[in-house]
């Protein structure tokens, strides 16, 4: 039975959602192979968000079934106030499942999504808001010029941008902008040349003179909650699939809403490896630079007899297939089946 009075009923005020809510989805099922540096990268992403966002915001993390060590670190970050709301899922419900969950749950006027491997630079919020004011029909605003066309040339909105009162032009983005993007995605020299040769569709508000690149990226976007709720929830059949990402872009287009991005990169893709460029930038920004000692580790691996044996096996096409299958099976065993 109840003894005494619950002190929480004493009239203490509950915090309200802030104007801006940012969320990311994490998934680090183990700390080997592809995921070796993932926890470190997540911490850098969260630190940069806290340091480079010019107004107070709610930071939500949806962890999609990471290993215990990662979940414990996220809990610690929640306890020290870096993460405001942390959701731990026992099983991976898919990237879209997690996005559907978070967008439904967040009550902020502006919602930002980012993959957990994007580095946010100073000014990203100001520039995103500047575009939002000049392009009120923009449902998705990415803080990095859109170079990869998720609509694959099928945008219907792009055919009648004059309806929105916008001026359009075809322009080349600055070389350093393209190179920054290519470095982030680990593009080959050949693909980098292809991207450098591309033209971009630029939209401009003739009143404010503000310009944006037409197209946004669903790996990082900023939008009004009322807009996002028009195209979320969306299909969530896979753990992670480009097709499901592209479906978001298609839905925005079908709703006759704009998707745009900044002319300069205010975010950059880190990926699963902290390369020299990003480490230099992190250091220049005054953030803690993680010690990355992979070079020595890699050399040790290559000197081992196990490595040499595997490398020999890999020369046989059949064994190459077997090894790849084992790689996925072991991932399933220790990352999916463990649950």
């Amino acid at each position, binding site marked *: 039975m109840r003894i005494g009075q619950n002190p929480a009923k004493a009239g203490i005020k509950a915090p309200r959602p802030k104007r801006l809510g940012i969320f990311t989805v994490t998934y680090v099922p183990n700390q080997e192979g592809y995921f070796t540096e993932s926890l470190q990268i997540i911490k850098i992403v969260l630190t940069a968000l806290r340091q480079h966002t010019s107004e107070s915001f709610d930071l939500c993390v949806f962890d999609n079934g990471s290993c215990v060590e990662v*979940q414990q670190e996220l809990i610690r970050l929640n306890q020290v106030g870096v993460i405001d709301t942390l959701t731990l*899922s026992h099983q991976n419900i898919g990237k879209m499942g997690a996005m559907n969950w978070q967008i439904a*749950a967040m009550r902020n006027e502006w919602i930002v999504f980012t993959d957990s491997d994007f580095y946010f630079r100073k000014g990203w919020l100001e520039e995103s808001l500047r575009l939002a004011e000049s392009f009120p029909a923009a449902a998705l605003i990415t803080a990095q010029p859109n170079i990869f066309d998720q609509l694959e040339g099928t945008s219907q909105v792009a055919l009648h941008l004059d309806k929105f009162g916008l001026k359009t032009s075809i322009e080349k983005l600055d070389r350093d902008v393209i190179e920054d993007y290519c470095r982030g995605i680990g593009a080959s020299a050949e693909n980098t040349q292809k991207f450098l040769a591309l033209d971009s569709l630029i939209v401009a508000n003739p009143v404010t003179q503000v310009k944006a690149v037409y197209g946004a990226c669903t790996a990082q976007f900023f939008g009004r909650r009322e807009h996002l709720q028009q195209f979320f929830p969306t299909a969530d059949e896979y*753990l992670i699939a480009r097709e499901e990402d592209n479906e978001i872009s298609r839905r925005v287009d079908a709703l006759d809403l704009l998707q745009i991005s900044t002319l300069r990169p205010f975010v950059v893709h880190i990926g699963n490896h902290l390369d020299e460029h990003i480490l230099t930038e992190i250091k220049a920004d005054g953030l803690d630079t993680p010690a990355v000692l992979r070079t020595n580790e*890699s050399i040790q691996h290559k000197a081992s007899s196990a490595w040499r044996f595997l490398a020999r096996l890999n020369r046989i096409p059949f064994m190459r297939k077997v090894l790849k299958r084992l790689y996925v099976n072991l*991932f399933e065993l220790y990352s999916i089946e463990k649950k």
Partner: protein
Amino acid sequence: MRSGQNPAKAIKEVVKPQRITVAVLNYIPFLNGYYADMLNVLQTSLGSIWENSDLPYDLLVFDNGSCTEVKEYLQEQVEAGRIQYLIFSEKNLGKGGAWNIIFDACPGEILAYTDNDCYFYPGWLSKSVQLLETFPNVGMVTSRPFPGHEQHNTATSQWAKNSPDAHYYSGKFLDWETYASFTMSLGVDEETTKKWFDNNEDYRIDYKGLTAQIGASHYQFLSYKKVLQTFLPFEMEKPMGQVRQLDIRMNEAGYLRLMTAEPLMQNMSNQVSPEFQKNPVKQTVKKKHSRIWNLPFIKKPLMKFYDLVFRLYYGGALK
């Protein structure tokens, strides 16, 4: 930069949520004073859900800023697979703030909501769902009968009186033990409870072979997610004390508010009574680590192999 291929992209399907989400709202800021026995209460409550829920469900726990000991316990349950979804809020968002998140985010079609101090008896879930799905236009089903506020039940009474398929009747149906066990669990003394009991009248409905008592409580109820979403957002300035909004709004919107005729849950408040202390269901479960592939001498070399294969194919950036 990206190095290699994310192995998650090779997995072709994800787990689908159960139709029912059981959601528990928890807040234990410290383990002293009013909250001294609350971790024990929480463990007993969750234990009764695990033991006595007789339909498939996902368990969602919303922790509204509890202390470290409680968070550690909850995280262990996620790891053991006993909690499917766990939400940690760094600050107490209040019950309204938590409801805003739970009601919108819960993956199930049916939400079985409870405060963290309910003990559930066997069959509570199926019998509550049966009422929810059999009666028309149901807003809330609470899993025990208790005296409520008639002014929050006018829509239900009106429907019962006007519906030719429903039989509406009143009388003294709750026995002393059922009545007193719940009322006194709220801290009401025996003398007052006796007075209330003597003046109490219960209102019931028979419909399609089922009997329901009229009334429901915001503290434990089942509802359809789509119904709950129509009442969002809840604007509550205080962490607690404004929760009757849900009862009032449900009634005003014309939804039925029902309770099971038999007691299928009990309020523990902030102490575990001897009746529940004897129950073994809160004991720690055996984790899945006993599976052969989780034995350290098997797992370690396999993970080493996994890492080597990754580096073999995708190790470019690690050179």
